[in-house]
């Protein structure tokens, strides 16, 4: 999805992992994914560069659909749809 489409997306769950370092954001995502249902959208905020590679890889493994990244000034917003 394009950043524009992602900006207009309403997520069912917001995970703010800004400020934590590897593997913080991944652990936060893993913890939070249990709170949503299949087909729902989760948004992860991270200021850790590595997360942008880690979360798509994790989604692939867990068969969640990775929707894309929106870059903000000092962090990124990562979107995924639970399998």
């Amino acid at each position, binding site marked *: 999805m394009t950043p524009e489409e992602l900006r207009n997306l309403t997520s069912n769950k917001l995970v703010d992992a800004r400020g934590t370092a590897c593997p913080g954001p991944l652990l936060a995502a893993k913890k939070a994914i249990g709170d949503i249902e299949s087909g729902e959208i989760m948004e992860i905020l991270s200021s850790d560069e590595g997360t942008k590679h880690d979360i798509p890889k994790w989604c692939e493994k*867990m068969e969640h659909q990775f929707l894309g990244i929106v870059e903000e000034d000092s962090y990124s917003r990562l979107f995924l749809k639970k399998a």
Partner: protein
Amino acid sequence: MSAELEKQIQELQQKIGKMEKGTKDQLSMVVFSGDLDKILAAMIISTGAAAYDMKVKLFFTFWAIAALRDPKKKVSGKTFMEKMFGMMLPKGSRKVKLSKMNMGGMGTSMIKGIMKKHKVASLPEMFTTAGELGVEINICEMSMNLMGFKKEEMIDYPHMNICGVATFLADASESKVQLFI
């Protein structure tokens, strides 16, 4: 269907069954080093793997076992040598030192400060997280005895066992990933 074909299918099914049983989505790691940096790496990989939905089995042996000691727990009945070892080795994960640039403890306190600044979890925090994620810690009984440690002085960890090398080999041989740190 011809009998020959049926036999072939049966054989294939057996082979696939064996392959599926052979390797699990599992990480086995020997944690041998007793240094802050190396144990930290081991714990980051372990918790990451658990988040990656892998089963994680750690085999703590030799110097690494000192990091599992609970400084608050005291055990009696140790021999002179065991007491000496206990005194010389770090008492718990808060006390382990860097493998390089320790500089009499200065480097270790500096890196701990930097870790805090970068919001990297401390070793005791990593152990708590690992416990919550179901990471298994197996302690090598032989080396624990060599170091003069008792299982009663180990931290309260939800998935901890005392075991031997066969446990590691059994776990490692069915794991997709095996590491030694």
